[in-house]
């Protein structure tokens, strides 16, 4: 990379209010290390308790979703990869994340997110409470957590979550899943 290109990249990121950006391999160790770095940055920005907590929580839920569910990149190394950014525009913060998913899971993801889009905060909180007490969740073979990830993100988002799914060139079985929350 030419330094002038990099300089423009940095300037653009700064101008667009990007506070935190990562693109690369994903694992629990990477998530924990980034989590520590993010906490320090949140302190530097003077994010207040509730705001800092929601940004940190959103970051962890999205990253752990990516670690748990995204298939490894088919070539060359098979590692899991993903991208995350936190940005600020006036008094709003945005968390955006992109990672690979299997195409066969698109319907399941869409179904969950479309349902959440049409729910009020009260309804989201009620659904969260119901799922928290759901003793049958173990029977959901596809879930690797508590079934609370999207609900937690939706609960903390001040605007309906947005998502987008795009194709992956040369890999018909894969798609890229993008998610955005507002804090």
């Amino acid at each position, binding site marked *: 990379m030419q330094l002038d290109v990099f300089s423009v990249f940095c300037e653009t990121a700064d101008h667009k209010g990007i506070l935190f950006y990562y693109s690369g391999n994903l694992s*629990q160790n990477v998530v924990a290390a980034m989590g520590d770095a993010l906490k320090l940055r949140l302190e530097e920005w003077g994010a207040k*308790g509730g705001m800092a*907590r929601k940004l940190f*929580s959103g970051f*962890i*839920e999205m990253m*752990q979703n990516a670690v748990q569910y995204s298939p490894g990149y088919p070539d060359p190394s098979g590692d899991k990869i993903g991208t995350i950014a936190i940005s600020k525009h006036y008094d709003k913060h945005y968390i955006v994340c992109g990672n690979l998913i299997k195409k066969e899971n698109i319907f399941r993801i869409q179904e969950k997110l479309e349902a959440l889009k049409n729910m009020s905060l009260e309804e989201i909180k009620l659904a969260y409470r119901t799922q928290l007490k759901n003793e049958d969740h173990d029977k959901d073979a596809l879930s690797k957590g*508590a079934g609370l990830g999207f609900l*937690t993100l939706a609960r903390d988002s001040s605007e309906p979550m947005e998502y987008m799914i795009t194709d992956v060139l040369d890999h018909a079985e894969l798609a890229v899943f993008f998610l955005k929350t507002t804090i």
Partner: protein
Amino acid sequence: MNNFYIKATADSPEVNFDFDNHILHIAGEAYPENAVKFFYPIITNLNNYLQATSEREIAVNFHLIYFNSASTKMLHSIFGLLNKNAQSNMNHIVVNWHHDEEDDTVLEFCMELKEDFHWLEFITIGTISAH
């Protein structure tokens, strides 16, 4: 009974169950890669202790500042276990719930537990964060 201790890591909390003195302490952050796997030995040890304990004063000192969604589910199960035991073994279980005054999420979770588990006594203790 052997006391139970787990050291904190970047993504998992410190757990100190002083069974001899009936003081159960958990502090830090909980977002391990696999919450079920992480909490399994905690729940097993806690369960053994509770089975063998009755008509006691038990203090739960809760100092977690962050827990992810999968850990939240496990914590809900733990408090369910305590609640059942308070009733069946006539233990008086007091939960000292420490939380950051500015962080509603931790306090809200306490309120939910309070609603779900009537045999537990919850005392909320707000602290002012450094920033």
